[in-house]
Every structure is written in structure tokens, then in C-alpha cells.
């Protein structure tokens, strides 16, 4: 029952992009350095996110990535759903698993499936309630706190 590395790192890279977007487009190399990830890995993640319309890429020497919407309009749920698929704790409730309907004769009338669906809904509700802007705000406040701390020392 774990969020994969792809989901965790993808979310981190998007928050980093949002923090640094005020300076214009952001190149993957700088995200990779700050987040201590390989550039190739972030590229794979961003290709998926671009296809899903969460980031835009700008080509050229000054190229890089920008968020395609305001950070307040992108939720953690949007990112995780693109990178992880539905937050389904069992295969038979993932939206694409129409196959489960034919392989499991209990599909439409299963107590356990109904329970797992409520787990998925709970996880999705939490993820959909947090925006990238919320995480940027958290970062900004913890960053200014650490600067204050340095001044006090």
C-alpha cells in the first residue's frame, strides 16, 4: 500500500518547479540538482505530466518547463493520478480494470470491494484537497523560518 518513487519524486519535482517558476521557465537540470534526482528520471516524469497537461515545455536555449496552470489549480490528486493511476488499494476497483468484471463473478456485489472503494475515495479526497500552492506556501514559510533562525544565531 505504498505511493511509488515515481509519485513521490514527481510531486517533489512539481513543487520545486512551482517554487522557481516565478523566475520564468525552469530547466530540468536545476530541478535535478536541487531535488537530488537524476535528470533522466525527472525527464521521464515530466514527459508523462506534459502529456497530461500539467506542465508545458518550451524548447530552445532558454527552454525549460512551466506549470500549465496556476499552482492553486493543480492538486496533489492530479499529480498522483497521472503518475500512479487511481489510488486503488485493490486491482478490481481501478477504473481501467473492466477485465475484473468478467473474471470475478462477485464484482458487482462484493462487500470487500465496496470497502476498498471507500479506502480509495478517502485517499483521493485527501489528495484532491491539497493544492501545489499549499505546498509552496509551506515551503516559503519554513524557508523564511530557517533564515530567521540563522539571523538569531
Amino acid at each position, binding site marked *: *500500500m*505504498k*505511493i*511509488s*518513487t*515515481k509519485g*513521490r*519524486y514527481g*510531486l*517533489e519535482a512539481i*513543487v*520545486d518547479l512551482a*517554487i522557481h517558476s516565478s523566475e520564468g521557465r525552469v530547466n530540468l537540470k536545476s530541478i535535478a540538482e*536541487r*531535488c*537530488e*534526482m*537524476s535528470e*533522466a*528520471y525527472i525527464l*521521464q516524469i515530466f514527459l508523462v505530466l506534459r502529456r497530461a497537461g500539467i506542465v508545458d515545455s518550451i524548447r530552445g536555449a532558454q527552454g525549460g518547463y512551466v506549470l500549465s496552470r496556476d499552482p492553486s489549480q493543480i492538486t*496533489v490528486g492530479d499529480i498522483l493520478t497521472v503518475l*500512479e*493511476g487511481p*489510488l*486503488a*488499494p*485493490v*486491482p478490481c476497483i481501478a477504473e481501467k480494470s473492466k477485465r475484473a468484471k468478467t473474471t470475478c463473478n462477485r464484482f458487482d*456485489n*462484493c*462487500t*470487500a470491494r*465496496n*470497502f*476498498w472503494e*471507500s*479506502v480509495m475515495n*478517502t*485517499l483521493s*479526497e*485527501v*489528495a484532491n484537497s*491539497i493544492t501545489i500552492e*499549499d*505546498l509552496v506556501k*509551506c*515551503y516559503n514559510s*519554513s*524557508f523564511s523560518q*530557517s533564515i530567521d533562525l540563522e539571523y538569531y544565531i
Partner: protein
Amino acid sequence: MKPIGFAREEVDKLKFSTKGRYGLRAMIDLAVYSNGEYVTLASIAERQGISTNYLEQVFSALRKSGLVKSAKGAQGGYVLSESPSDIKVGRILRVLEGPLSVTDEDDENLAGNESCIRNCIRINVWEKMNNSLNELVDSVTLEDLAEDYRKRNGIDNSMYYI
């Protein structure tokens, strides 16, 4: 750790293991059909379409945790140790899956060592998801699921009290 590509084994990480999934169904079955009597794994296996061998592994873990009791012999099998209304689903899942968390402790940096962004994500996303997940599974009892199962399958609970 710097992953290079998307590892194949990551694809289904978000899923509960078959132990947790089949174990929950087997416990619902036991709550519905036992009514204080010992139930054989073979009968659970038949009703739920799960192999008896697999159920033996699952019930060995459930027995060690004290959720079920076993009896050997012709009338043997398994019975719930407590009333299903006193058993939270969260307890069953933790016995079979370990602590319920959407992140691996091993994957996370130690709290003092993590970046600001990672710290913000941990506090605002993963811990909130974990809290909601644990609250949910601890708000549902095995009896709630057994009751739902009886309704869906047209099993009249009252017949057992005659």
C-alpha cells in the same frame, strides 16, 4: 538513491497484498458463517474461491495475533476469538500488512535530514493520507462488513438464532 527508470515492480505498489485482500474476505466469511462454531478452511476456500493452502498461511498469521482460535480434529477449524463488533477492520489489516502507511519508512530520509520540500510533502500529504486511512479502517468493524455481506447475499441472520 537516484532511480534511473520506472521500475517494473513499482507499478502495483499501491495495492494491498493478496494476504491482506484475501485475509479480509476470509474474515468476513468467518464472521458470517461461524456464529460461534468452528469453520473449516476448506469451506471458506470453497465459498470465497481462494485456495485452502493460501488460507492456511493467512490464518496462521491471524491465529498468532489472537484474532482467531483454532481447534484440531473432525469438528476442528477456526473461530473468531472476539465478537465481530469488537474487531476493527484496521486491526485485521495491520496483522496481515503491517503498519498502514502510503510511504515506506526506508524510502524516507530521516526527519532532520530531509529537504524543505520533502518535509512539507510529508507533513501535508503523506501524514494526512495516513491519518485518514487509519481513521477509516478503524471506524469500520468486522460486523459492519458481515452485515453488508449478509444483505448483499440474502443471508438471513435470524435463522442462526432459532
